[in-house]
């Protein structure tokens, strides 16, 4: 049975669980501090199905801390972390492929898995420019897996072709480019035959995904439903992020999507 409504918290929780499902017990996850949902997912995986996974977030290794403390940085993590790693050393870990997975939050993504974190609009006269390319161009060619997420799934975000390729997609060994995209509506994955709709969230119709997506993708019928958090996951999320910081990353839009 399809539900028609979801609160921002329910959307955030389904997204966090879908991101966490990408983490296996042997993964070494790198998370930047600009991606709180990715950080929540890595903490959730460690607290539930992947206790052996390692987490390096903002230079802090495997801290016994919640989401808020991690985002607070060095000061709030004193005495709680197993190790501190400088930004540059963590880049070397990516280069040595000690790190296996990273979460990225692009402004735009296309069907080839190209990521844009730089600018929107034509190159000569961009309409919007973001702070800069950051490590996107490095990460896509360094890490075995990149998992992208976007909290505002619409045709101008999931596009036919990105306005600027900060980080190129395409599966190339040993680095794989983007392997999975989790949005507020659905989950996509990339394989040998290109991009595929893996599942739609419980309150979403496949038709809504088609209307909100600017790139073409494959579907295998029947379309699967993204799992809702189970009680153990909900309990863990409550401990990881009691304050609900993860919800603040959701756009202030009508998430019901019921009339469109």
């Amino acid at each position: 049975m399809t539900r028609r409504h979801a609160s921002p918290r329910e959307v955030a929780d389904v997204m966090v669980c879908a991101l966490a499902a990408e983490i296996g017990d042997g993964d070494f996850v790198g998370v930047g501090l600009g991606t709180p949902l990715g950080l929540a997912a890595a903490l959730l995986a460690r607290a539930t199905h992947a206790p052996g996974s390692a987490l390096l977030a903002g230079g802090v290794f495997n801290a016994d801390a919640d989401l808020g403390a991690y985002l607070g940085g060095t000061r709030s993590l004193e005495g709680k972390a197993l190790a501190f790693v400088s930004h540059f050393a963590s880049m070397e870990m990516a280069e040595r492929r000690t790190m296996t997975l990273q979460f990225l939050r692009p402004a735009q993504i296309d069907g080839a898995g190209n990521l844009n974190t730089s600018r929107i609009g034509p190159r000569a006269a961009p309409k919007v420019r973001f702070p800069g390319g950051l490590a996107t161009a490095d990460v896509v060619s360094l890490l075995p897996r990149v998992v992208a997420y976007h909290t505002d799934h619409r045709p101008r975000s999931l596009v036919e072709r990105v306005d600027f390729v900060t980080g190129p997609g395409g599966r190339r060994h040993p680095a794989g480019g983007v392997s999975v995209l989790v949005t507020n509506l659905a989950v996509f994955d990339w394989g040998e035959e290109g991009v595929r709709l893996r599942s739609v969230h419980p309150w979403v119709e496949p038709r809504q995904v088609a209307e909100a997506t600017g790139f073409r993708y494959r579907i295998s019928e029947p379309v699967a439903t993204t799992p809702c958090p189970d009680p153990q996951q909900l309990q863990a999320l409550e401990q990881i992020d009691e304050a609900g910081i993860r919800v603040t990353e959701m756009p202030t839009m009508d998430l019901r999507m019921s009339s469109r």
Partner: protein
Amino acid sequence: MPVEKAAPAFPSFLRDRSVVAVGGIGLNRKPMSLIRALLATGIRRLGLVSFLGSVDVELMIAAGVVDCIHTAGTSLDGMGLAPRYRQARQRGHPRVVEWSEGALAAALEAGAFRLGSFPTAMSPRSEVLAVNPHLRVMPDPFTGEETVYAQAIIPDLALVQGSAVDAAGNLYIDGDPAIDVLIARAARYTIASALAVEERDPRTAAISRLWLDQVVVDPKGSWPTACFPGPLLDQEAVSAWGREGGGDPGRLGLT
């Protein structure tokens, strides 16, 4: 090398069009009092290297002393976009050169070794290559794999902020040393600012005195950015700057 209590003295070779690299990361450990002292010299048309910039880039643009900015990203982090930087990106002046983090680090590494270029693991298919003339794709001489090479950056001056300095002039950084060690190695001349003089084990210094030409002591040197374990971020000052579109440089302590 003396540890100074007073204002920094800039090297005589520093002039218009020199390249200045600034340490710190985001809103952490920006050497703001050193930047204010640099602005007071009247030297202009500078090249600025700020790996992950914030109010450092903002203040230098607002003072009108920058021709070109090299950065992998500049914003006010949780307090939004950096207004002056954003305006520069839209107008094309001062010129902003976009780098990936890995490529900018490689350019400074090349500078530190006085090599012409350095390879970087950045993707050779990124369009950052199309907007950054300091990057080239060449086959690796051994594997033949297409590889990005970054042209060396040798800053004329590096400015870094630490938490403490000892009497011998070794600089201590508590928390992430970020780009600071690299710019100190690459630059022709490096000035550090420390919150206090403390005797510590020199083996734990982030930057040895061998890479430093001058250290000044200023307990408020990082204001309004944070400097662990000292001052916290002055959120009010930074958010006011963002709110007012980067209006009055006096907001960031420029007199």
